[in-house]
């Protein structure tokens, strides 16, 4: 291999790193919102960047803190939704089946990776 080959490879990798850094810097201001649905009816939309506690129909309580949402209370016996990990990324969800509550993170820039696959 010649020296110019290594320079070329280094240049491409540097370009890759630059695009990566640009993208990760740009995604900080990404607007994500939280949609709560009960029995398929939209209950409300909330800003995920704003810390708040949402009481849903007196059955569930959701806390948004530091861009992440977690269910802190549910009146159902199994408590599955309370034990789910905090959600923050696009299309992550917390579902409380007994109360038919669905909490879904939605990004303003929808991820379209699945638009065409094979």
């Amino acid at each position, binding site marked *: 291999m*010649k020296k110019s080959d290594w320079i070329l490879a280094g240049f491409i990798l540097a370009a890759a790193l630059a695009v990566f850094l640009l993208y990760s810097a740009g995604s900080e201001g990404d607007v994500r919102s939280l949609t709560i649905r009960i029995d398929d009816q939209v209950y409300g939309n909330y800003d995920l960047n704003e810390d708040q506690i949402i009481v849903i129909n007196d059955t569930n309580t959701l806390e948004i803190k530091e861009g992440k949402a977690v269910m802190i209370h549910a009146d159902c016996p199994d408590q599955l939704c309370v034990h789910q990990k905090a959600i923050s990324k696009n299309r992550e969800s917390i579902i409380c089946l007994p109360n038919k509550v669905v909490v879904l993170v939605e990004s303003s820039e*929808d991820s379209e990776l699945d638009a065409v696959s094979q």
Partner: protein
Amino acid sequence: MRTRVVSFGVFVALALIFSYIEGLIPIRLGIPGAKLGLANLIVVIALYKVSWKETLLLAVVRVLLAGFMFGTLFSIIYSIAGGLFSLAVMMVLKRSGRFSVAGVSIAGGTAHNIGQMVVAMLVIESYSIIYYIPVLLAAGVLTGLVIGIAANEMLKRLVKINL
């Protein structure tokens, strides 16, 4: 003339077999969409062994044949875009005379991924997948390097064969 037709047939056959073998190898590199591009090994060798017209024809024919046999309409479109862009970049770099086989192949592997990415953007009408470009660039350098080293070793042993 006769030997050129024969050698072109051998190149197409080898490229097709390599496309097939690649489908059998279960290595996925952990990156969706990234492949080693074994068939590109034949294209790189052809680039150094036969005229650019025949190399171009080989690149198109092998994508069409492999696509109809193993792929889908979409995979043909992606492969044609990647293959032609890759070949164009490799021809320019080879003609410049500054790079060895490995360098030409690295540029080709990267260009292949960029060409596919551009078509993907046009197909889904979104630029949001641009964040995947760093991964594909790095993967292109890696696979291009492997293919380039392999092609270089093969070319060393093919000097006696003049096509």
